[in-house]
């Protein structure tokens, strides 16, 4: 087994285990920390796919900014395992069965798709993930969506301030 294959399996197991722990942790702070582990594993996958810019942006934006915001809100509300509201066990079981059926249907669909055979993802090659090429495409072909996203951020900022203001 080559080193990239080993890293793929390691990051996959890490991502899945951490994702399960996000859902089953009683303490919301632990959930946030496990979600940060998921984001690190996904960033590792991006690096294996040679999407280095997205790996760094994923770490900075998600694991850095968004998760700190979540942690800040959780600590502001002083949430812990004892104040955690719980659904009853039948509803939990129904949720797990529904999610499992969804997974089973989609996995069987992918298993039947013969078009996907013989398609391999080559790791560690290719240059489309490099910041030089992404920047050229972003500021030539996607400059209008880029500017619109700045308006989106401005409106989100105004919206957050208006909602957060004491009415």
């Amino acid at each position, binding site marked *: 087994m080559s080193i990239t294959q080993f890293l793929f399996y390691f990051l996959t197991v890490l991502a899945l285990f951490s994702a399960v722990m996000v859902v089953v942790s009683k303490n919301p702070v632990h959930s946030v920390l496990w979600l940060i582990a998921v984001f690190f594993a996904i960033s590792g996958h991006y690096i294996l796919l040679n999407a280095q810019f997205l790996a760094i942006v994923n770490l900075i934006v998600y694991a850095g900014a968004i998760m700190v915001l*979540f942690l800040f809100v959780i600590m502001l509300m002083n949430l812990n395992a004892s104040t955690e509201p719980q659904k009853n066990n039948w509803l939990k079981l129904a949720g797990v069965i529904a999610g499992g059926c969804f997974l089973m249907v*989609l996995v069987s669909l*992918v298993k039947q798709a013969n078009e*996907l055979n013989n398609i*391999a993802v080559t790791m560690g090659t290719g240059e489309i993930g490099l910041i030089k090429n*992404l920047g050229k*495409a972003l500021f030539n072909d996607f400059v209008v969506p880029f500017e619109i996203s700045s308006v989106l951020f401005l409106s989100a900022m105004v919206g957050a301030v208006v909602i957060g203001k004491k009415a």
Partner: protein
Amino acid sequence: MPIQYYIYLCLALFSIGIVGVLTRRNAIIVFMCIELMLNAVNLLLVAFSKVHNTAALAADKTSMLGIEAQLFVFFIMVVAAAEVSVGLAIIVMMYRNVHSVDINFLNRLKN
């Protein structure tokens, strides 16, 4: 790596996010599970962009086919950041009014 492995990984992550949304009552955890689903989709977009780029590179050594998917992932992250800031503001406002983040208190949508 066959593309199926990536599809199975992303389906599993997405389903775990769905199970989290269905089984938890804490609004913040539900929100975090939605972020998990967004990230599963992002990973699949990057994997398929690699596949298309590798196929195009066989014909043209300098092909940039597939770069759009990586920019879509970038814009998904941008929208997710804006969404999180507004969503957490709504949750904080709800906590100030009912002193709880239990989504069962939200089903009335008034008072």
